[in-house]
């Protein structure tokens, strides 16, 4: 089935940690038009959260900068580009290794890139020291048919607790 959607959005926000939740919810709401499963939405939210957090704590460290997200829908895929103009990564191969972190003192686990790579279908890192970092991720949503009701259901799950507290 060929998707009828071709769509694009751009999001920019200040590198404050309280924007992490807002950023992943926005991308998830945009992705909803592809009618992803609950698990696919969760994978996207987690990967976006990893990349946005990295821009905030590694890219900009304690300074204030702009995090930029570009999302594109092409066919049944969503492409998500998350970039900062922060300090950049010296050694990308090392950075991608599971458990490698430059901030163990912040209890970072070094699993961010590993999670993005495993939760998304493709991941690419581009970075120049002193200029900034861009992470591009792609996920194919494997769906047969999409209805507005399906999409309403997905939208209703975004940011929703799995069990109600009232």
């Amino acid at each position, binding site marked *: 089935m060929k998707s009828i959607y071709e769509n694009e959005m751009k999001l920019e926000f200040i590198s404050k940690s309280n924007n*992490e939740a807002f950023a992943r919810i926005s991308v998830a709401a945009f992705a909803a038009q592809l009618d992803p499963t609950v698990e696919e939405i969760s994978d996207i939210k987690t990967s976006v959260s990893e990349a946005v957090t990295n821009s905030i704590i590694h890219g900009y460290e304690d300074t204030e900068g702009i995090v930029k997200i570009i999302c594109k829908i092409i066919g049944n895929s969503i492409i998500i580009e998350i970039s900062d103009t922060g300090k950049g990564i010296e050694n990308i191969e090392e950075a991608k290794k599971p458990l490698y972190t430059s901030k163990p003192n912040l209890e970072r*686990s070094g699993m961010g890139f590993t999670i993005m790579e495993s939760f998304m279908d493709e991941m690419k890192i581009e970075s120049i020291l002193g200029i900034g970092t861009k992470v591009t991720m792609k996920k194919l949503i494997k769906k047969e048919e999409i209805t507005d009701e399906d999409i309403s259901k997905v939208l209703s799950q975004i940011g929703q607790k799995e069990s109600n507290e009232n």
Partner: protein
Amino acid sequence: MNVNYEQKNKLLLLEITEEIDHHTSEKIRRRADNEITRYMPRKVIFDFSNVTFMDSAGIGVVLGRYKMIKMLGGTLELKNVSLNLKKIFEMSGITKICPTTIKQAI
């Protein structure tokens, strides 16, 4: 976070009620450490039934508490972990060192 301490079994139950990301983890960590050093429990259980989102910040929170509790001679268990959270705990090897139970579908 909801906190419950059973004196008899020296069991500290910490129920996390927030999404776990870098933004929220600092507070969760601080609160957990306070309760652990206050009660010196033999066993700590993190209950994740109300956690609807977690990224790798959750790994840091759990591993950090694991080390601390172990040093104090106690054990750590993870309870009511959803399938999405389980994927992340498994990738980091946490499920190999902490007994982990899955959340039942409602």
